[in-house]
């Protein structure tokens, strides 16, 4: 007999194991759901992990208010299909309450503000574990992340003081007021995610597929022209055939020119890509340590 399973099945089994550990070790976990492909895959795996029971935790969306409309439509139908509970943490509400100040200036983004809303949401609902779709291949600070990542009572990450993680034994013990971030997709790469989406025939927001869109070239990427992104002096709005490799806040998530309108073509494109996936994320390019600094503050 050949008792082997391929690498996607191994990654799937590992992620399901981590999701079940999270449900078992914490009183009140939540799954952070952005409507991006990684959180979609994570939620998909969560359904498998607990089937035929419903998810033992809600989906939490940290809403910057600067969303692509397609993401919101997708989110609502996805949540309904899953039969899951949805909790929304609103950055706009944090701004209105004076918890954060909106950035001003041409490159203003609400990306940084999400951290406060996230931590407030965690505190309000007393979540003791937040499942995130972060992957270690995304960014160098994430390469150092654990499956079970302890956060202090301020929600901060201390990369020098992480719990060693051996075999598949996870230590989720914590003091009152502390919480954990849990990353079931730690060992997945961008390619794995796409291959899995194809294998499982998971429906995605159409932003991921090539389409015509009015965009503004800024730096290395094309930002979608919308209510929140207007051309600055010297910039022009042009129509391009583009798709998004990641989906986040509309003000900082850039599109790439692409003809890939099917999963097969996307996988082909990912296989030959010469830029990293987050190369179009303006939030990562603010400085060389942008992700490390945000993570220490309590970002995803």
């Amino acid at each position: 007999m050949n008792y082997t399973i391929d690498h996607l099945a191994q990654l799937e089994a590992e992620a399901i194991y981590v999701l079940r550990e999270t449900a078992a070790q914490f009183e009140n976990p939540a799954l952070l759901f952005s409507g991006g492909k990684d959180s979609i895959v994570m939620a998909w795996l969560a359904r498998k992990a607990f089937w035929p029971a419903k998810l033992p935790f809600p989906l939490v969306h940290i809403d910057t208010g600067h969303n692509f409309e397609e993401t919101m439509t997708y989110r609502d139908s996805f949540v309904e299909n899953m039969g899951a509970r949805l909790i929304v943490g609103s950055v706009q509400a944090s701004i209105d309450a004076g918890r954060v100040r909106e950035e001003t200036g041409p490159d203003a983004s609400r990306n940084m503000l999400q951290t406060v809303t996230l931590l407030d949401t965690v505190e309000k609902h007393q979540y003791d574990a937040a499942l995130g779709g972060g992957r270690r291949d995304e960014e160098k600070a994430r390469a150092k992340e654990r499956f079970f990542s302890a956060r202090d009572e301020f929600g901060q990450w201390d990369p020098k003081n992480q719990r060693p993680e051996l075999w598949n034994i996870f230590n989720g013990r914590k003091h009152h007021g502390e919480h954990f971030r849990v990353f079931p997709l730690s060992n997945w790469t961008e390619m794995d995610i796409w291959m899995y989406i194809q294998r499982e025939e998971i429906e995605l927001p159409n932003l991921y597929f090539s389409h015509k869109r009015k965009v503004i070239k800024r730096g290395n990427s094309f930002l979608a022209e919308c209510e929140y992104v207007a051309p600055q002096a010297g910039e022009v709005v042009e129509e391009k055939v583009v798709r998004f490799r990641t989906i986040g806040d509309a003000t900082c998530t850039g599109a790439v020119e692409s003809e890939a309108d099917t999963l097969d073509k996307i996988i082909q494109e990912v296989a030959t890509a010469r830029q990293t996936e987050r190369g179009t994320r303006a939030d990562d390019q603010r400085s060389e340590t942008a992700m490390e600094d945000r993570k220490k503050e309590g970002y995803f």
Partner: protein
Amino acid sequence: MDLLRFTTAGSVDDGKSTLIGRLLYDSKNTFEDQMAAVEASSKKRGDENINLALLTDGLKAEREQGITIDVAYRYFATPRRKFIIADTPGHIQYTRNMVTGASTANLAIILIDARHGVIEQTCRHSFIASLLRIQHVVIAVNKMDLVDHSEEAYHKIVDQFKEFSSRLRNIVDVSFIPISALHGDNVVDKSDKMPWYQGPSLLYHLETVYIGSDRNHVDARFPVQWVIRPHSDEYHDFRGYAGRVASGVFKPGDDIVVQPSGFTSKIKAIYSDEKEIDEAFSPMSVAIRLEDEIDISRGDLIAKPNNPPEATQDIEAMICWFSADAPLAVRGKYVLRHTTNEVKAMVKEVKYKMNINNLHKNVDDLTFQLNDIGRISLRTSKPIAADSYQNNRATGSFVLIDEQTNQTVAAGMIL
């Protein structure tokens, strides 16, 4: 596609980061924006060429101090295999990190500087690989360019290592490869500078080394993680035991025994991917239903009556101490986490500490400080269903947790 997890070990300046950078770069697993950043950093540091080691650079603190402070995981793939690298720092005080990285690895690459040969740290790294039962080891003799690609220098090191490694018991498969990570010789492509070397390049070896027999498919072990009870009309009486098969094979109809209670039953059905399946084996995550309603909860272990694990309260183990804050307390109480089970454990006795630089046992100084490795006896508050680590990595391993700080303070391997 197949998956290989490996770890890299070497002392500072053995060229470990350069080797990983070279593997990523020459196997075309790097991106333009990454290379642009590395090129800019190289220039800033005044490096003559593009410094591939910078591809593995992580945190700000590390770049400032030029060190690696923690285990980082890297990913790359070739058409043959997907690889996960646990990149662990070589610095002397980071035994803990290498133990962590080694715990999930199928293979370890141990770097030796061709100019220095087998040194204390080689001994340390090999011992850890053996202790953690990494079955495949590659000795990469690096910086061959600095010894004029000399066959003699290489063979001297091979002989040195063989003599020393005869004392390590768990390593079943050792390969030797002369390389130059800096220039890329024998890393991805075979080098023409060492025609006397007939073996494969490092990458080819990683792509083809046979790991199919590494998993234990003999002893059936299923630690229960979570009990699935839908309470829905459709699945009214459904009670599924969810978990990941640690070893062995389970099929519907199999007789089972639950440890530590000793209750017996039969497997009614096994579920994966929202449907019934014919068999489950390691490392699959599944849910199992039994014929009888018996009391089973998280931490219990489902096995087969012909070879169940021993349910015991007395544990003999090798441990590696992880805490910098406090030494291991004899008679001290810790939380012991074994598979999905958690019990209390008291340290009954410290038998010896291992000098891992020369493999001598030390019975005079029995204080376990950070990074110390040795043998202890534990007594648990309740029986645990344990195997020896030698036979079963999943059911033979545990961690100790300090109840006050909640920190993981030790990794243990049951003897």
